[in-house]
């Protein structure tokens, strides 16, 4: 019974520590709230079933991310398409500055969506989990130089897309 209680406490600690981070990561990978909830739920279910294999609590973050990435990949194996509802991005505001912010947010949404997954994932791992280049390399089974190059290109691509959108918006006005 004590062992069961200890495992349950360990699980609850994992949920408390990593649930929101995994949820946000999942959301930016899938851009669909329902799909995110499904893969995060499946991630924690698999983690719970194998929780006795988790020998070092410090390794939990990478372990959970690996499970979540596999769950996301399985989605495509099952040929389920993730649909993006354009209404999610249209926000009507009366205030001009809020409208401007909404446009910029929409552009950033589009810019992130336009990133290839190979670029998007290192960026999200760095931003959401504070991973270093080495840690991202280990998580994605890449070498560190490749990770740093992808991070640089992803950020440059985001900056370029945003600059182009701003320029075209200025032209139209």
């Amino acid at each position: 019974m004590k062992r069961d209680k200890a495992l349950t406490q360990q699980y609850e600690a994992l949920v408390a520590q990593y649930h929101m981070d995994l949820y946000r990561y999942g959301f930016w990978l899938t851009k669909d709230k329902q799909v995110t909830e499904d893969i995060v739920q499946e991630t924690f279910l698999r983690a719970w079933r194998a929780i006795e294999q988790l020998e070092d609590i410090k390794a939990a973050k990478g372990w959970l991310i690996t499970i979540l990435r596999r769950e996301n990949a399985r989605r495509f194996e099952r040929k389920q398409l993730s649909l993006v509802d354009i209404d999610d991005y249209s926000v009507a505001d009366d205030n001009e500055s809020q409208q401007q912010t909404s446009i910029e947010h929409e552009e950033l949404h589009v810019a992130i969506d336009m990133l290839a997954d190979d670029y998007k994932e290192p960026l999200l791992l760095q931003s959401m989990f504070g991973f270093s280049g080495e840690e991202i390399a280990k998580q994605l089974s890449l070498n560190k130089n490749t990770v740093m190059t992808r991070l640089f290109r992803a950020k440059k691509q985001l900056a370029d897309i945003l600059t182009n959108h701003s320029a075209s918006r200025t032209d139209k006005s």
Partner: protein
Amino acid sequence: MKTLNYFELAMADPYCTDPDFLEAVKNDSALQQAVIDAKENDKMFENFTSDVPAPSQMHLDAIKAICDEPTSSTVTHKNKGHLNSYKPYFAIAASLVVMTVSLFMLSAQNHHNDNLMDHALAHTSHGAPYAGVTDTNPTLTRVNQQLSLYGASLTNANDILWSSHCEFQGIASAHLVYRDNAERINVFLVPKSLDFDEIKTRFSNADFNGTITELSSGYLVIVAPKNSDINSIKSNIEGELDWEI
């Protein structure tokens, strides 16, 4: 794949701790500015990606309920009928597992310590190599997202370098690292799920001073280096913390 130059590296990872890169930054004001710009951009990106639709209550309930299901070991026991030929080996293995688990439990009990002060000092000392070393400078929204698990919130996160969770006797607790001039201050929000044998409002060891404030929902624990003004830090944090004070 070609290696990035220092300006590209600054954009890719402005928090890079490579000594050659840091030396180059020190000697080049344009590179220093590139690092500052890249940190601002990273911060903006982090703020932006923090803003996601809240998960549904049904999802949160489902996540909590998962630990009511059997773990893989329980499932394996149910299927042991298929494995008769390996019974002797499993018996030996099972004995070893029982021994290991028993030793672990005994060991854990021997080191059982309900002293909140020692826990806080141990977390600070053991966590020092990594907690807050990479300055993630979380936003107030991000910090409050984490603190919402404990029903707490802050009104200011300007001096918070790092925000995460840790365990006190298996109970998840918030762990924040604040900046105080050049020092790092460790702050823990420990829910009242545990009964600690002993609570001292002031404690210390050779390197740190600590304070504990008992609130209605939990304990605010602050551990600061000896040369810090812990009273002023405590007063500031208490003023910014909403945890049913």
